[in-house]
């Protein structure tokens, strides 16, 4: 593969990587409300503006609801609009998430994953973004700072693509990645400018010669259903666009991105499916177990919306047992990725056994021994063909007798 750009390697936190990517894509408007652990991004954008490194109108809104609302207004006025949030902030703006996607506005948002109250907790889990899974946003997940950086750059292209025109949320684990320093390879500004291009809005409120009514009332005999169908089709088309953009990005950087990453999966008999930073921990355990000759592998989901059902079913169809690791839970149902993946495998001929592992809620540490525990029960299922526990909780403290 020929990589067009020279390498520029640095040490960045996840938040720093996202802020840098947001600077480089040269947005017109950034409307941000600070919240732990995203705050750092809001601060860095403000510092870029103060230092003349970023020519953006920075709107220091009074809430996340207003952050997303201002992004809606800005995007409808033909501007490239970005924001970032976490946790309660994402929930607070949830109403407007649906408006942004329903109005087909290509807003790019970073969400630094954090648990939801109560009890109040500032650490990582995925309850925030999973709660927004039906909001019509494309959702990308990032294992580390590098992926968060790369995902933000690609998010602009995906969101603004004429076949898509949907908002994109880039997720990254709070504190674990947002505040951890690691090696990140950056693109030079000029390559980013070239890669993301200029935003060409379909309509703009500022085009006063061509007036447009945005957000009309779809009355009793309206076209709501057809609008939603069009939105669903755009989401379906996003799959191809995400792959195309990923390929183009690979030719620029050497780092390739698809809908998910397969790790030692081809000849595996059991595997875990996982999002974000826990994938790194699991990969280490996969390597370790492989050295012992055990047939284990991993699938790291990058694109949660649109959910790559068919593609994942294809990649996982020959396995015997799959454990889905969810860092969030829908009480009364279980892990959301588990439920969706199990459904995706329904039409596979000899269905693998699929079990659920809930881990890391409220930032509970996820350690290699937890991954080993998951693989151990999957290997048992593979040997015996029996599922004893459909749902297990990794790393939870036992109740005192």
């Amino acid at each position, binding site marked *: 593969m020929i990589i067009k750009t020279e390498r520029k390697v640095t040490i960045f936190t996840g938040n720093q990587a996202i802020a840098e990517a947001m600077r480089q894509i040269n947005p*017109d*408007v950034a*409307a941000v409300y600070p919240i732990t652990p995203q705050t750092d991004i809001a601060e860095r954008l403000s510092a870029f503006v103060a230092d003349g490194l970023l*020519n*953006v*109108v920075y*709107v*220091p*809104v*009074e*809430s996340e*609801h*207003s*952050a997303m*609302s*201002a*992004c*809606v*207004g*800005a*995007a*409808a*006025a*033909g*501007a490239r*609009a970005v924001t970032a949030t976490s946790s309660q902030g994402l929930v607070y703006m949830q*109403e*407007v998430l649906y*408006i942004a996607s329903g*109005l087909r506005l290509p807003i790019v948002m970073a969400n630094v994953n954090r648990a939801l109250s109560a009890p109040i907790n500032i650490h990582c889990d995925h309850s925030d973004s999973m709660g927004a899974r039906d909001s019509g946003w494309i959702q990308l997940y990032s294992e580390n700072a590098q992926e968060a950086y790369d995902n933000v750059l690609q998010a602009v292209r995906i969101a603004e693509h004429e076949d898509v025109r949907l908002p994109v949320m880039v997720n990254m684990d709070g504190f674990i990645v947002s505040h951890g320093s690691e090696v990140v390879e950056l693109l030079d500004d000029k390559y980013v400018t070239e890669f993301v291009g200029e935003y060409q809005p379909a309509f703009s*409120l*500022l*085009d*006063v010669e061509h*007036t*447009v*009514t*945005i*957000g*009309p*009332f*779809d*009355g009793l005999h*309206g*076209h709501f259903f057809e609008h939603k169908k069009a939105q669903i089709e755009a989401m379906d088309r996003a799959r191809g666009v995400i792959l195309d953009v990923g390929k183009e990005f690979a030719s620029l950087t050497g780092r390739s991105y698809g809908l998910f990453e397969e790790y030692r999966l081809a000849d595996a008999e059991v595997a875990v499916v996982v999002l974000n930073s826990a994938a790194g921990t699991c990969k280490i355990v996969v390597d370790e177990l492989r050295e012992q000759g055990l047939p284990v592998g991993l699938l790291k989901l990058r694109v949660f919306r649109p959910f790559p059902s068919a593609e994942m079913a294809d990649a996982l169809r020959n396995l015997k047992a799959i454990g889905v690791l969810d860092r969030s839970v829908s009480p009364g149902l279980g892990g959301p990725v588990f439920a969706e993946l199990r459904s995706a495998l329904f039409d596979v001929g000899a269905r693998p056994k699929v079990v659920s592992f809930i881990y890391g809620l409220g930032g509970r540490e996820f350690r290699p021994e937890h991954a080993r525990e998951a693989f151990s029960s999957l290997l048992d299922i593979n040997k015996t063909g029996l599922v004893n526990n459909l749902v297990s909780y990794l790393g939870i403290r036992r109740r005192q007798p």
Partner: protein
Amino acid sequence: MKLKDFPRKYWETLPRHIEPFTPGHRLCAGCGASIVVRQVLLGTDKPVVVCCPTGCLQVSSTLYPFTSWNVPYIHSGFVNAASTISGVEAAYRALSAKGKVNREIKFVVFAGDGGTYDIGFQALSGALERGHDIVYVCYDNQAYMNTGIQRSSATPVGAWTTTTAIGTQSSGKREYEKDICLCVAAHRIPYVAQASPSHPKDLITKAQKAFRTKGPAYLNILSPCPPGWRYDDASQGIKLAQLAVETGYWPLYEVERGIWRLTYKPDKKRPVTDWLKPQGRFSHLFREGNQSMLLEFQQEVDRRWEELLARCGTASAS
């Protein structure tokens, strides 16, 4: 002064543009909102972008696939007209600075009292504090009329609404209405005014000032509502708005860079019952045994009037 008495010269000074808000909308006959919109938009000859929160005006003027707006328009949600227009105005600044937009454009919100006094209050406060160059107009019909006449914090004390029901244990709304202009003026924005469509010259002049203002401007405009205020003859709305002004219930004033000024002073303040009586929502106040409520209503009107005069440095005369 009646409309027909205005000198022809005055009307000639008003901008002649394509009517920005056109007939065919589904607002009720006699609705104040459309009159407010048309009078306010006479205040500028610049292109405008309009934003409405959810409400009567929004649902009635943009029934997909139709629109009454000849100007760019956006509706986003109920809570967030002020923050949505903040984003539009921010985009305007950004794209103007980058040379992608090359003309002067004005940004205006038309929101009801629900979207202003209540659910949209935080977004409004934020937008005012941030100093966006916008005109925020509240067409105040004093309740959630769009959902069928539920109380808001703009509903007058004693008024019947569907959530301040009249019964053996209740005589309508217990609480006095929020003084929104005082709240807005406390943000120290450059221009705040209260107006009424019964006094169009006063209203349009205030709109002109609001559009000329650099930074946020706020207009609080009374908007008669035939079904909500419960008056039989829909053509009487403007008359009612006039009575609200003449009784001192709805004084006309402005706050320009912190200076309060009464823009109209009735020769003699009429009793507030003149305004209350024709409205069905207050009919229970006129029943036997409720005289004390009328008295209290009058006392509150007088108290607020005197306070306003003091703020405006005007001597009390009537």
